[in-house]
């Protein structure tokens, strides 16, 4: 058993901070939002990823310099009929990845409307990344890299072309977001419960009323 003061960090660096952020993925259906998350969180890829009906929730941690950034990821349903439910997920989010499919011009248009909606409705400081997914299918490309890049610059978005299939830029886009997020004390929460139920259960157990 190490002591409390035991070596947790290389000497000379600050204590590790843990920041927790809510991140939401938005975009047209079948552009690969769930695949990006699955690649990022589990390192997996399924050619026939089921359509998300609802909002999937996962957590993943990345280390940026001396800060540990923990993402609470909400992967939303892309189908148009669920559009009105999106605010439930981007409300209070500090970061968003708006995904389109590089082989489908319509999805890029849809991505732009998502960006507009976020700029209008989401938290003013939200960090938005635009991800042109399915970059492995460049031969079927219909959205030019330059076009998306110009749009991203104009709107001050992080931008990358990604491929959940080949893992290209998947970790990178999350890392870029983690780097851009403000790591002030507000978000530093060393003991944020993984989930409130578990936390409550612990409290209840400890209080002895079970």
């Amino acid at each position, binding site marked *: 058993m190490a002591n409390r*003061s035991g070596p947790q960090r290389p000497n000379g660096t600050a204590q*590790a901070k843990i920041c927790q952020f809510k991140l939401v993925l938005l975009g047209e259906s079948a552009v690969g939002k769930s695949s990006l998350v699955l690649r990022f969180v589990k390192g997996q890829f399924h050619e026939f990823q089921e359509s998300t009906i*609802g909002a999937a929730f996962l957590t993943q941690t990345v280390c940026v310099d001396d800060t540990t950034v923990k993402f609470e990821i909400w992967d939303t349903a892309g189908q148009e*009929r669920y559009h009105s439910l999106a605010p439930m997920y981007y409300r209070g989010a500090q970061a968003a990845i708006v995904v389109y499919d590089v082989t489908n011009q319509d999805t890029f248009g849809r991505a732009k409307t998502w960006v507009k909606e976020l700029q209008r409705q989401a938290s003013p400081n939200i960090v938005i990344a635009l991800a042109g997914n399915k970059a492995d299918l460049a031969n079927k490309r219909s959205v030019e890299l330059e076009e998306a890049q110009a749009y991203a610059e104009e709107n001050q978005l992080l931008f990358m072309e990604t491929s959940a299939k080949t893992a290209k830029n998947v970790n990178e886009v999350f890392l870029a977001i983690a780097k851009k997020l403000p790591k002030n004390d507000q978000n530093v929460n060393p003991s944020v419960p993984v989930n409130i139920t578990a936390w409550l259960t612990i409290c209840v157990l400890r209080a002895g009323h079970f």
Partner: protein
Amino acid sequence: MSSVDITNLVQWKVNPGDTVISCVNASLMQDWLRMTRYLAIVTNGCSAALFVLTSANVPPTSVQEINIERIFPFDLNFKCDLESEAKDDGPDRFVAITYQKLILLFELELGDKSNMFVSELYEATGKVSEERGNEFLEFGWLQKYNPSFRIEQSDEEIEEQDDIIDNPEIPINRESLAKGASLLAMREAAIKFHMSKKEAEYTNTQTFRVFVGTWNVNNHLPTVSLQDWLACDIDPPDIYAVGFQELDLSTVAYVVSDSPREEEWRFQVEQGLHQGAEYKKVALIRLIGMLLIVYVRKEHFNHVKKVHVDSVGTGILSKMGNKGGVSVRMEIHNTSICFVNSHLAAHVVECERRNQDYKDICRRTSFSGFSPPLAIRDHDHIYWLGDLNYRIIPGMDVDVVKDYLARKKFPPILEYDQLNHQKRKGNAFIDFKEGPIDFMPTYKYDVGTDNWDSSGKERAPAWCDRILWKGDSIRQLEYRSHQVYRISDHKPVSAVFLADIKKVDNAKWRKIHEEVMKQLDKLENEFLPQATVDTTEIKFNPVNFLELQTRSLTIANNGQVPIKFKFVKKPKDVNYCKDWLTIDPFTSDINPGETCTIRLEVLVDKKSAYKLNSGQDQLYDILVLHLVGGRDIFITVAGEYERSCFGTSLETLAHIPGPIKEVHAGRLSELERQLRDSSQGLEAVGSYPVPKEVWFLVDHLHRHGMKTNQLFIQSGLTSEIEAIRTWLDCWSLDPMPGSVYSVAEALVLLLESTAEPIIPYECYSKSLEVAHTYQMCKKIVQELPFHKKNVFIYLCLFLRELVSHSDDNKLDVNTLATLFGGIFLRDPPWHKKVSAGKYWVTNQQNTFIRRKATFVSHFLTTDDPTLCQIVSTSGQ
């Protein structure tokens, strides 16, 4: 349940002859899980053991619920460590129980109970170390128990537990979860715990030579070189910790904080350091006569971090600094080191006082700048030096002592050394090690000589000045006194150690840190609530007014943890579903591997029909099924609503010449919209004076039901009402189906399912106010829009006739007025909000009911020939 009860329960559990000394509630921390356990110290004769118990209920209510999980005999294999010291507002304390290779970490609740338990635990285990001389403690009595885990198995078992983090594929058994295991939420604590477990993987060690010296200088000036003391070894040390006592005994020193002596001695020390290396001062701390200076070799200086000092006075009034301790703590690379220089109470008889001083220094030394502040014990390596003042127990005669000393036979005297004695008894310096003493006592000499004190006090020489240490990987090379120094009545003492200092390999650290986090993420995601549903699309058959349809939805918990689901509200919605839908249950818990079937019922009733008819709402909704702490699943509910005269406004019905089923949906919506937009209702032109549906029903009753007993009072049959609805909506050549009771009920339902009641909501309050005056009531009716007025008068006339048959139908004015009062003067929707069930509310409601009845009864009883004219004057 108090601890006394638990202790008693456990006492019942143990075999006769065994005694439960103490029992507490604790949490067993296993990797990411925290499980409720009870810890009990049980004794039998001289030997004792720690019992780890589980209980089916928390807290247990009977002996049968308690199960003995493990038993740890307090033998030489047993070790317990307090992880953090309990402070008033400090963190919970952790107790690590080590038995051979098995390590269990328990968290105790804060409070006296736990404090008592810990001191009992220390006492019980302390006895073991006392008994260490006697090889065999008797543990046969433990054989009679049959714990869930035997110690022999424990080695393997711990391997498995340790592997959880390395191999998260090992499922965590559901049983333990169901028994109250839960996710360990404190992520940072978890990371810390796992990083410290893996420390060896990312640290290398470097051996440092540590020189520790102590000297009580008895208020003398530094007139001699200290090289013979500090630099008497060939190899230059890496770290120096040099402590003095009685540096300055002048009374001024008690009052004025700086003393010129400090500077003089510091200078002399620095002159005396080993010439073979360059040194830099890390810290200097002085409290009156106690001075402690720490140096490191220049090349190590940049690796020294987090240097803090503290001093504790235990002298006069337990505060003054003539006695006490000064401490320096630092981290060199990744090992934390604490040096304590103390001067404990003097005199042979003050042994207790010295123990107390020791405890006070331990308790009160606190390095702020850490949260929570660190204590001495919180360090990897601790060196304790100073004039500890422990003497030779008077049991050995002074002359005998001196005789042994003359022959340099130390062991017999050391048998009588108070420090050794107190250590063995567990009164002080319990966990500290000291090397074998093979040097002359350091006190008391006649100054300027090597002769024992000749003051005539006849005191036995003693090893007052000592150096002890605590911590793994420290080896003592030297422990000696320096007899050549004669300026004090004490001789200086020094010790040289080889200490392994941990150096973190940053690259490895980062790699392992990330690995730990990844595995934690993986576990966390695995432990998130997970569920599947058998369908996300609930489709209803065409839905008719008042026709209940049921669908089911099955939610399966396919995750690792119990889940709680609930349907949640969408943004801008008032409820988690539309009012035509009922979800039962809308929230519940499901255990892993189990399912829950939910009933979804669609029922369009008088409240929801209007919106669906008028096209303001659709039979379509997306339900958000939320797993608390996890994902959401969207369930789409859809069906086609069959438009009906029920829930259609009277005006619209009057404007539709044929059955409603033959009217285009757009036309219906259009009429309803026009009606909503105008304040005076729809134009009378081109419409029936009363809706034909009302006429059909009333006419039927008029022809078949006027003499029917309890018409309107006895309820109809749902199936018949449905048939009547179809008849009205589609028309038919067949006679109207159903009994007159059902027809009467259908009439009431038709009037109740409109968006607006016959007397509009805006006239509601006024109508109740004037209910007692017929003329005023009549005026209100006269001012009603055309169709509403007609229906009102038409129905009143019908009711009047009904009353005239009261001999047969047993109806009276009051009954009918009360019933129709509620229909004509329907409570506005906003009124329901105040019905909080309080007495005055009910009372007020009763008043309202009476007034409505009064309002209607005027029209059933007053002989007013002009009443009919109201209708006829506006005829078609």
